[in-house]
């Protein structure tokens, strides 16, 4: 290997080395920056599960920080076909951690013995959540109309 060839060979190695170092530093800095962005949860689907008599919500956390649902409020608005005026909720899960960049399913169980939901019944859920960067509380409201919302999602 003479000195001219060595010059070209070492130039190529230097370019590859610089490429590696640059991508290593950029990748890790980007990961660090993206990791600090909090996302707000989105309810991407709500389904009434007949056998367990529960409304199942699928909540997506698009951010990279884990969020915690502190409280859930449940309001019922009867439709035309419904004879039921109000529902008692048997079990509302609280302190649910929402996994980062994933979907968490939460089931709100209605009291046993009460009749099934009828078409047109509206279930409104309010989620109160916090994220680890501040002590503020944030709310997400989701309205679910039985029979109508299901069909829309079916499209």
């Amino acid at each position, binding site marked *: 290997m003479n000195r001219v060839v060595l010059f070209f060979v070492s130039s190529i190695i230097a370019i590859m080395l610089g490429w590696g170092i640059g991508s*290593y530093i950029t990748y890790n800095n980007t990961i660090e920056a993206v990791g600090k962005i909090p996302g707000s949860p989105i309810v991407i689907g709500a389904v009434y599960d007949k056998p367990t008599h529960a409304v199942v919500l699928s909540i997506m956390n698009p951010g990279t920080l884990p969020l915690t649902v502190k409280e859930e409020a449940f309001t019922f608005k009867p439709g035309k076909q419904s004879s039921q005026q109000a529902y008692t909720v048997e079990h509302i899960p609280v302190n649910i951690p929402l996994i980062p960049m994933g979907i968490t399913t939460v089931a709100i169980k209605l009291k046993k013995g009460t009749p099934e939901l009828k078409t047109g019944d509206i279930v409104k859920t309010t989620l109160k959540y916090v994220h680890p960067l501040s002590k503020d509380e944030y709310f997400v409201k989701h309205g679910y109309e039985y029979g109508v919302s299901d069909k829309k999602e079916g499209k």
Partner: protein
Amino acid sequence: MNYEKITWFIFWLTFGFLILMLFYGFSLLVLTATSVEFAYLLGLVSFLILGNRLLFGYGWIANLLDNVISFKQITSEYRQKLEKKLKDKQPEEMIRESSFKALLILVFKDLDYYRYAYYGVFLLLVLITLMAKFNLLGEMVIGKYIEGVFWGSATAVFFVWGLEQLAKASFVEYNLLNLEEKNKNGGQ
């Protein structure tokens, strides 16, 4: 007026300013570095210190041979430099009787021990980095910092490797020139 002295004075002033700016820039780099960049700098600095002797040794040989090749003659000045370098390492008589080429080979041989140790340490670091990357050491939080140290050391090793190859390529070129040594026995 001694123009040469003035020129040298200006040169050293500029050179000193350059070094000062270098330190200023480097300290700024360290102060503003993220943790990942700091790992890189750590690897770079530690391997530069570790390979100090190799860097300057091979650089010195490459520089000497560059002069010999471009002037196409071995003057007593270059021979004396080599002799001075080998003074405490080899018997005096042997140095006096050896040819220029033999002295060069002795200098190369002296650096070989450091070269093996240096590349050995680098190889060890490469293995640890690969193991950390493929999670063979278990889930490690410091994996990405080990990789940063690896990249820094790779930069230093690249310089050492380049200078070593340059010195050896220069040696081959010098060999092909087949120069006659004028003053073999060290004197004038």
